[in-house]
């Protein structure tokens, strides 16, 4: 479903953010991208959907190769939820934000309303429908941001730090939500407990390179590997608080 080959990203100031990254994700797989700050997690997600320009390599999602020409089709298949929901929600109401994608897809207004209501119902967020996004709590904003991407019916979901800035209960709610979604998922996160709960596979990044790739439980319990990646064991496995 996702094929990343020899992906290299160099920022305009010369910083090499990603170097020769290989990644392959099967349909229905949930993969966590973990690594210390600056390891290249967000850059990898951004490069996969063409927000951040790649210097070399190739990305293919759902059979669509990342090229300038294919960008709109690729983005319709790969939904990305940004780290800060305030960047994602910019319309007057949650309804308009969730409807933004379907409207851009040229859908009829009746179908848009049906789609929005069905997505909000799936996420148990019907009560947010007519609320103003900037008045929502952090957890509600996150759910609204996820709804705004799900409404485009993507086959692949990319999440950038989906549980950051959330209190424990909201964090738990978002983690449960992610576990229930049937999509192929790539989740960039520092939240190793959530990664362990939601994902069956983990890719560890360090300084823009893939340091390890394997089953979540094996890698996240490997103290030496976590140390080498600048991380700590998940709290549920006795990591430092």
């Amino acid at each position, binding site marked *: 479903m996702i094929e990343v080959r020899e992906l290299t990203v160099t920022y305009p100031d010369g910083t090499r953010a990603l170097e020769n990254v290989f990644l392959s994700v099967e349909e229905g797989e949930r993969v966590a991208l973990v690594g210390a700050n600056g390891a290249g997690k967000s850059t990898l997600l951004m490069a996969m959907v063409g927000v951040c320009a790649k210097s070399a390599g190739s990305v293919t999602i759902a059979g669509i190769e990342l090229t300038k020409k294919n960008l709109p089709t690729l983005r319709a298949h790969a939904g990305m939820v*940004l780290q800060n929901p305030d960047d994602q929600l*910019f319309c007057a109401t949650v309804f308009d934000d969730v*409807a*933004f994608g379907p409207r*851009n897809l040229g859908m009829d207004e009746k179908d848009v309303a049906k789609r929005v209501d069905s997505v909000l119902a799936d996420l148990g967020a019907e009560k947010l429908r007519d609320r*103003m996004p*900037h008045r929502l709590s952090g957890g509600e904003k996150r759910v609204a941001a996820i709804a705004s991407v799900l409404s485009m019916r993507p086959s692949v979901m990319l999440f950038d730090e989906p549980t950051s800035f959330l209190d424990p209960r909201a964090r738990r709610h978002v983690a449960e939500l992610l576990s229930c979604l049937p999509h192929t998922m790539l989740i960039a996160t520092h939240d190793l407990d959530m990664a362990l709960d939601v994902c069956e596979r983990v890719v560890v990044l360090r300084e823009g390179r893939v340091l390890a790739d394997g089953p979540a439980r094996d890698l996240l319990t490997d103290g030496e590997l976590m140390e080498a990646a600048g991380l700590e064991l998940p709290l549920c496995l006795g990591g430092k608080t």
Partner: protein
Amino acid sequence: MSKISNAMAELYTVEQLAAKDTGVHKLHPMAKLLTTIVFIVAAVSCGRYEPLRLVPFVFYPVLLMAAAELPYRPLLKRVALALPFALLAGVSNLIFDSGTALVVLGVSISGGTLSFVTVVLKTYLCVMALLILTATTTLADISAQLVRLKVPVIMTTVLTMTYRYIATLLDEVSSMSAAYALRSPNTRGVRMRHMGQFAGQLLIRSVDRAERVYSAMKLRGYSGLVPGHNSAPMKGKDWAYLALIAAALAVFRIFDIPSALGGLFGSI
């Protein structure tokens, strides 16, 4: 709550009113937009020495505010923001147009005074009509109807985006001012000598933020134009509303109702 947070909350007050569920809110946005345009044209086209001709027009905002259950205080506050401009424009009339235009009970009233009152009244009426439109119709609906009226889509997109980015800018100002205030407890506001740095940082941060928002839009299929919605045709009640208001405004504009009433009472 800081002044900036208050400003942000106020920015959306009128828009929040648009989410109400009254009969006026339910009218087709096109009907409301057209009546607002007709109202403004009718009010603005009244003569500069005829402030009394504008009096019947006051019924439009008063009735609509009552029917739409709009609170008068936030709307009047916003009208007050526009009045200084009207006062400034009208003051020059007071100075340069001092010839007597009217004598009432032995008191001569200059043309400047009449045109001053007219300018202020017209401003009040027009701004109020626009505020009522935005308090009963969402910005997205207004933009969509403007597109239907053949206003270039790029203009409505710029309008919508500018409005949205004001909140983004205020958000950045809010967090930067909070960070500044926390480290300079004895200072009110930002010191002049720090203003350059503050403004520069604000610009950089806002551009960064705007870029992230733009990325989020592109990721959801945005291709340069905000898609329009509410393309449903107007129903009978919408046409009736439009016809009724337009007819009333035409009567107000064509006939000098205050003079006619004055003559009527005079003859009694």
